C-alpha cells in the first residue's frame, strides 16, 4: 500500500449499483475507492431492489481522489474473472471483488495463488456464471409465433440463476442473426429483429407461447436416440439438473423413458439367452425334443414339428427352409408342391431321394391365418439361427459328406450367415466338420417364376443337382 496514501478517512461508504450486472459501473466506483484509500471494511455494496446494508452510513457521496494518485493495478486474469463474477446472483460479489482488488495493489500476482480462499471463491463464482451461461446457450427452447405481418418470430422462456441475459445476447445474435427472436426471463428480456437488440423488463412464463408444431418431432427424436441398455440417470441429472426441466419440452418424457428402459433391456437380453440342455444324441430324441421346442415364436403357433427323414448314414443331406401347410399336416418334409417338383428334378439328376436325408432349417411351419387359409411366412434370421441348434444336432448324427442347402434360409441354417445364392451356387463351401456345402435355389422359387426366367432358373437348378451327384460319386470312390 506504499503507493497509496495512508487511509485517513474512516467514514463508511455505500455504493448502490444501478444494474445488477453493470461491470463498468462497479469498476469505476471501485477504482475511485481504492484511489482514495478506502479499505474494504469501510465499503458496502447494494444491488437494485435490495433493502440495503443495515450499517450503511451516511456517506453515499464517494470521496474524490487526489490529482496525483498513481494508477491502480489489476491483473488481466482478475479483470476477466471480475467481468463474469459481477453477473453472479450472490449479493456479496461486489464486496468480494473489491477486497481482492484492494489486495492486488500490494501483491499483483495474488490471482496465481490458487490456494488463497478469496481467489478460490472468485473462481468458484466465475465457474457458476460460466456454467449458467453455457446452460442458457444449451437449454433455451424457441417456439415459433406467426406475427400479424406474416414474419416468423421465435420466442423462448428461460430462467437463469444469475444476471446473465444481457451478457449472452451476443451469442444468440451471432447464431440467429437472420431470425426474429425474443428471450423472456424473470431477470429481463432481450429481443432481436434482425437488425437491433432491444431490452425490456422482466416477463412471466405465460408471456411466451406454450407449444410449437416441431416439438412433436423433437420429442420423438429424444425418445428414440437413447439406448435403454445404457441407462445412467445420475450422469443425465448432473448435466441437466431438474431445475431446467420445466422449460424443456423433452424433459416430460424422462420418467417414462427411465421406467421403461430396464424392462426393454432385460427383454433384449432375455431374447438372446437361449438355454438349451444337452444336445440329443439320437434322431429319435431330436424328434421328441423339437416337438416341445418353444425357443422362438414359431413354436407357439398351432402347428406340428416336422422331423427330417432318411437313412441315418446318408451321404447327402438335403435342407429346405421350413415345413409348409401340407408338410405340417403330413408331418413329413417335402411332400407339398415344392416337394413334388424336387422329386422330379432329383430323379432327372439321378439322385435317389430315399438314399438322402431330407430335412428343413426350421422345424415348425410359420404362417399367418387369412380366413381359412394359412399363408406361409418366411422365418426371420433370428428364428433360423435359433433353430440351428437342431440342424446341427442332425448333422452330428447323420454326418453327411455333402449338404445341399436349398434357398437362403437353408444356407443360413447351415452357415449362420446370409449369403447370396447367385454368388455361391455351383461350388462347394467347406464346412468345419470336413463335409462340404452346396447351395442352390429352393424349388418353390422355380414354381413362382414364369416363362424365360423360369426356364433359366430350372437349368441352373438342374446343373446344381448334377454337380452334387457328380461330387457324391467322386467322394464315394
Amino acid at each position, binding site marked *: 500500500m506504499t503507493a497509496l496514501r495512508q487511509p485517513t478517512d474512516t467514514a463508511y461508504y455505500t455504493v448502490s449499483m444501478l444494474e445488477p450486472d453493470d461491470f463498468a459501473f462497479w469498476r469505476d466506483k471501485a477504482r475511485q475507492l481504492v484511489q482514495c484509500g478506502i479499505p474494504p471494511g469501510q465499503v458496502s455494496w447494494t444491488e437494485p431492489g435490495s433493502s440495503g446494508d443495515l450499517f450503511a452510513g451516511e456517506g453515499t457521496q464517494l470521496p474524490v481522489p487526489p490529482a496525483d494518485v498513481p494508477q491502480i493495478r489489476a491483473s488481466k486474469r482478475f479483470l476477466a474473472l471480475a467481468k463474469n463474477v459481477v453477473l453472479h446472483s450472490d449479493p456479496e460479489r461486489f464486496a468480494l471483488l473489491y477486497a481482492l482488488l484492494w489486495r492486488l495493489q500490494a501483491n499483483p500476482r495474488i490471482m496465481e495463488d*490458487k490456494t488463497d480462499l478469496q481467489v478460490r471463491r472468485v473462481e468458484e463464482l466465475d465457474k457458476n456464471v460460466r456454467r449458467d451461461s453455457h446452460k442458457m446457450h444449451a437449454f433455451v427452447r424457441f417456439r415459433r409465433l406467426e406475427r400479424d405481418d406474416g414474419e416468423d418470430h421465435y420466442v423462448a422462456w428461460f430462467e437463469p440463476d444469475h444476471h446473465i441475459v444481457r451478457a449472452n445476447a451476443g451469442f444468440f445474435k451471432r447464431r440467429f*442473426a437472420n431470425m426474429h427472436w425474443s428471450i423472456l426471463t424473470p431477470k429481463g428480456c432481450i429481443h432481436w429483429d434482425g437488425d437491433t437488440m432491444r431490452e425490456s423488463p422482466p416477463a412471466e412464463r405465460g408471456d411466451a407461447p406454450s407449444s410449437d408444431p416441431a416439438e412433436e418431432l423433437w420429442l420423438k427424436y429424444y425418445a*428414440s436416440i437413447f*439406448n435403454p441398455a445404457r441407462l445412467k440417470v445420475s450422469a443425465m441429472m448432473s448435466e441437466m439438473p431438474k431445475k431446467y426441466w420445466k422449460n424443456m419440452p423433452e424433459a416430460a418424457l424422462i420418467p417414462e423413458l427411465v421406467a421403461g428402459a430396464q424392462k426393454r433391456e432385460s427383454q433384449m437380453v432375455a431374447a438372446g439367452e437361449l438355454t438349451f440342455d444337452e444336445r440329443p444324441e439320437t434322431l429319435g430324441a431330436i424328434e421328441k425334443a423339437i416337438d416341445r421346442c418353444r425357443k422362438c415364436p414359431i413354436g407357439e403357433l398351432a402347428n406340428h414339428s416336422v422331423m427330417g427323414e432318411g437313412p441315418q448314414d446318408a451321404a447327402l443331406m438335403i435342407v429346405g427352409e421350413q415345413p409348409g401347410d401340407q408338410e405340417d399336416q403330413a408331418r413329413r418334409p417335402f411332400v407339398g408342391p415344392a416337394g413334388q417338383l424336387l422329386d422330379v428334378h432329383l430323379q432327372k439328376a439321378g439322385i435317389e431321394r430315399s438314399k438322402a436325408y431330407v430335412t428343413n432349417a426350421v422345424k415348425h411351419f410359420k404362417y399367418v391365418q387369412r380366413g381359412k387359409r394359412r399363408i*406361409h411366412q418366411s422365418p426371420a*434370421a433370428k428364428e433360423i439361427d435359433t433353430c440351428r441348434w437342431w440342424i446341427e444336432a442332425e448333422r452330428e448324427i447323420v454326418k453327411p459328406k455333402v449338404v445341399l442347402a436349398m434357398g437362403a434360409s437353408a444356407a443360413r441354417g447351415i452357415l449362420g450367415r446370409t449369403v447370396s445364392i447367385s454368388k455361391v451356387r455351383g461350388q462347394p463351401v467347406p464346412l468345419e466338420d470336413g463335409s462340404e456345402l452346396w447351395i442352390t435355389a429352393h424349388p418353390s422359387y422355380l414354381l413362382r417364376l414364369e416363362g424365360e426366367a423360369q426356364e433359366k432358373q430350372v437349368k441352373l437348378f438342374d446343373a446344381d443337382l448334377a454337380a452334387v451327384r457328380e461330387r457324391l460319386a467322386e467322394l464315394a470312390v
Partner: protein
Amino acid sequence: MAPLRMTVKVVPAETQKNLDFLLPSRGTRTYIEQMGQLSTIEKLGILADAAKYDASCASSGTAKKNSLGGKGIGSTEGMGICHAYAPDGRCISLLKILLTNHCIFDCHYCINRKSSNVRRARFTPQEVADLTISFYRRNYIEGLFLSSGIIKSSNFTMEQMVECARILREEHDFRGYIHLKTIPEADPELVHQAGLYADRVSINVELPTDSGLTRLAPDKNAQQIEGAMGKVKSDIAEMKDARKRFKHAPRFAPAGQSTQMIVGADAASDADIMGKASRLYDGFKLRRVYYSAFSPIPDASAVLPLKRPPLIREHRLYQSDWLMRFYGYQAREVMQATDHDGNLPLDIDPKLAWALKFRESFPLDVNRAPREMLLRVPGLGVTAVNRVLAARRHKTLRLEDVGRVTVSIAKVRPFIIAADWRPTTLTDRADLRTLLAPKQEQLELFAA
C-alpha cells in the same frame, strides 16, 4: 430423386393358394407393408433409433463461424454445446440420424444389417436438411450428424449424404456443425466432397482387430478403411497448407476426423484396443477415437454375446485414452497398467493401476517435481497440476494447500511429499490397492 426401387415379386393368387411361398428368408411382402407411406415422424423414430449405437456426439473444435450480416443461419464458436441429455447420460448435441437403415451389408453387431428384422425407412436429402433447419431454429441442436446404411452401392449412398450437406450449406447457407460418417468403399472424390461441406468426417474402424472385422463384418475390409482414413488425413493436411498461402482456400473438415471401435463384441483385449487406438492417433492424426460398449440390440445375431454392455470397461478405455492424449503417457506405458490377460483392472482407474505397479517412482515432492511427473500422481488432474504449479511459485505447499486444489486428498496423499507431509511407508504397503480402490457398491436390487 427417384424413390427406392425394391424388387417385389407379385405372386398370382392361385399360385399362392397351394404354394408354400418359400424362399428367400427376407420376406418380400413385409417390405411392401413396411415401405408404405411412412410419415416424417415415423421415419425419424426409426432412423434415430437406428443411429443411437454410434457413440460420437462432439460438436467442438471446428472453425469459428457465425451468421452476422449474412443471409445464413447458425454459428460455431469452438466449444461444443450439449442441448439436452438423454437418460443414458449421453449428450444430445447433433441431430444424429441415418439417411436410411436399409443396408446391403451384413455386419453381425449392427442392428441395421441385411439379415436383421428391423423396420426400415429412408429419408430424402431434402427431408434431412429441412428437419435439421427446423430443429436448429428452435435451438434444439448444434447441427447434423449423418450416417447411413448402404443402399444400392457405396457411391450412391455417399452421393446422397453429400447432397444433404450440400443442401444445408448452399441452399440454407447453414453455418452450424455437420458431421458426416463416410463410407470407406466410396469413391475418394465423394469423400473429398464430404470433407468440403462437413466440419468433421469419420470412418469407423468398427473392431480393434482385423480378424474380428473379417468374422463380424464380412463385407468390410480393414485395408480399405485405413486407406480411406489415410486419404482424409492427407486431404486435411493439403487444405491446411493451401489456407496458409491463399486466404480463401476452402476449408476441409476443420474439426478433423474421428473413428469408433466396438468394445466387447469380439475377444480383443484392452491392450489390443489401446494399441490400435494409439496407432490410429499417430498414423491418421485423429481427433478422437470413440469406444462403444457393445450393447444388446433387438433381433441380434446369434454370433454375439447378448448381455449388459460392458460400460465400466468402456469407461476405463476412455480413461486410458485420456492418459495418452492429455497426460503424456505412451501407449506402451498404459499397457503396462493392464493385468496379465491384457485387460485393464475394472475396480481401479488405469492411472492408479500404473502408479501401483511403479511405486518406485513415488512419492513425488509437490514443491519440486516437474509437471510431467505430477501428472502421474493418482488424483491430480491436469487442472489440479496447473494450480499446484502456479501456487508453488508463491509459497511452499502444505498438504492442506494441495487439498484445496484437488477433489480428494485421500487418493493423492500416499503418492506425494509436501512441506508437512511424508507418506513414510505407505507406498510399501501390500494392501494399498484395497485402501485406495473405491468401496464396492451395494448391488442394485432390481438390476437386470
